[in-house]
């Protein structure tokens, strides 16, 4: 029996009746993230019908249209709110919220905080390309200080947001970061994240060469992948580095891993208590 290739797996999950080609630029990392998501779901053996991909708005948001799951393309920043409703309504579903950095951290920042705090059983995938891709390269909260964008032609003045620290602080059950250069590791954490109860967040660093790279010293998408390769390092090694040597190295790996029950589980347990038939009379 011949071995199933990665592509063959992916083809089982794409919507061939959807008019391809897709909207992504050549070299965009978003497609790689989608590939890891598909392989994670495949390796977990979750039936397509039990998966709901809830996406926000942006290049990242468009990914939902291509995959043959239940897919909901919501409003900008609100993916987690729709996901919360779906999960509460039917806790058996595996709900994955797919968001850009603008989506998740800026317009949707409050929802991210509260989804994590509430510990709703949703997997949040933040595709961080440090920029607003779809609208043409404006600053996002994740744009590194000093970088040039359409709305920061003189360099980003405010500090860049740390998604992982935010999710940790807000109380997420599982928090990890990966990059599209380190694909296997990204797939591994994504698989873990989907399998965990409660709220889990995976930040995937994914280069946007078109809108971010060109303006910021990366001539091609290859340059951006090289940058990912050279800046990312495992969080354990990062933690051992003395403060002054850390520079702009990017820790990747798992930052939080707990297994507190999700909000929906706690809620339905409370309900089961209410609905317990009261024993009348006894024997």
């Amino acid at each position, binding site marked *: 029996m011949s071995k199933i290739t990665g592509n063959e797996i992916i083809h089982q999950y794409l919507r061939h009746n959807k008019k391809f080609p897709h909207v992504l630029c050549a070299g965009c990392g978003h497609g790689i993230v989608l590939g890891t998501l598909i392989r994670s779901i495949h390796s977990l053996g979750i039936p397509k019908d039990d998966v709901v991909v809830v996406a926000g708005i942006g290049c990242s948001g468009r990914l*939902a249209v291509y995959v043959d799951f*239940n897919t909901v393309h919501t409003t900008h920043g609100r993916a987690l709110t729709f996901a919360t409703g779906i999960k509460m309504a039917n806790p058996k579903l595996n709900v994955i919220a797919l968001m850009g950095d603008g989506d998740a951290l800026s317009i949707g920042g409050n929802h991210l905080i509260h989804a994590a705090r509430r510990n709703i059983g949703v997997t949040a995938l933040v595709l961080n390309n440090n920029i607003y891709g779809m609208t043409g390269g404006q600053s996002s909260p994740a744009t590194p200080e000093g970088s040039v964008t359409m709305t920061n032609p003189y360099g980003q003045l405010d500090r860049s947001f740390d998604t992982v620290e935010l999710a940790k602080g807000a109380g997420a059950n599982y928090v990890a970061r990966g990059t599209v250069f380190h694909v296997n590791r990204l797939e591994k954490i994504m698989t873990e994240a989907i399998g965990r109860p409660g709220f889990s967040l995976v930040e995937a660093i994914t280069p946007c060469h078109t809108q971010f790279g060109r303006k910021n010293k990366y001539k091609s998408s290859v340059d951006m992948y090289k940058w990912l390769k050279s800046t990312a390092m495992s969080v354990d090694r990062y933690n051992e580095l003395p403060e002054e040597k850390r520079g702009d190295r990017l820790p990747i790996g798992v930052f939080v891993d707990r297994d507190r029950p999700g909000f929906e589980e706690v809620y339905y347990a409370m309900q089961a208590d209410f609905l317990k038939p009261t024993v009348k009379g006894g024997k």
Partner: protein
Amino acid sequence: MPRRKKRTEIFALGNEAVAEGALLAGCTFYGGYPITPSTEVMEIMANRLPKTEGGVFIQLEDEIASMGAVIGASLAGRKAMTATSGPGFSLMQENLGYAIMAETPMVLVNVMRGGPSTGLPTCPAQGDVQQARWGTHGDHPIIVLSASNVQECLDMTITAFNMAEKYRTPVILLLDEVTSHTREKIELPNPGEFEVFSRTVPSMPPEWYKPYEETVRGVPPMPPVGSGYRFHVTGLTHDRNGFPTQRPEEVVELMDRIHRKIDQFFYDIQLVEEIQTEDAEICVIAYGCVARSAELAVHQARQNGVKAGLLKLKTLFPYPRRHTEKVLAHAKTLIVPEMNMGQMSREVKRVTMGNAAVRTINRVDGQIVTPSEILKVIMQG
């Protein structure tokens, strides 16, 4: 003849009646954020839903999240609702448009209070009438219902759920602070005494299903997410398969259908109560708590020998055009009293097309329009 089972009578606030109506209509999901004067709806749902089989109550971080969660729950097959007031209603508008575009049933209760902005938080007003019609962006049909007493709060909430499910659309129940905070004796209908409509689910095998296909009523069947029918839901203009499209003929087909599915059912959707309108030469058109003042004014006018009538609007949008046209057969004057600067009188004028004088009575001081104010204008002719 079988004896009708005696109905339970309760003494309830308008907002309590809304919650009771929702539960009777089969609502099993409430997502919301507190705001005066709508909060009691939320508090009652917080109490009741967790004790109801499968019932979900969740307090969200804001009204935007509330709408998102309610839409998500509805996609997953629940009858879902939220309640709010002016400032929260404004925040819900973007997702309201989404619910219209993605044809997601839900009930949104807006108990109006004085505005603009935080305005007169605890004072009655009817300032959100046009926001309910046009608050979200783009061209779209909408169903907006109203109630003028506590019994109607219950009945119209059930109607709102039924219409939402029947037409696959969000339905807005627009109330005012006076109606919501009035306490009156009402009757709870017994099960079986009223219609409970639930959305049509597809019967064909999943491979055959096209989520936004044309149907006789213009309303495609809607399976719950996760039931084996996998499709794409989006706020983007989409084709029959649910995929985004910008092809003019597909755009027009979708827009036509979502308008038509509401417009053509005016007999079912446009609800009014006609009080002494048959021969009325002067007709008051009113809704919400103002309709109660108007009813008294009309009775007093009749006692004074004036042929006055009241067209009480229970549906505000689509505006009950045909009922107004009927009144115009003999009415020379229409009087539209409102607790705003004239948001509904615009509709009345639009439909009247100069065939009768339209006189307005407007209050925006947080006070209700009284019967004597209306009577005075009726007596002026």
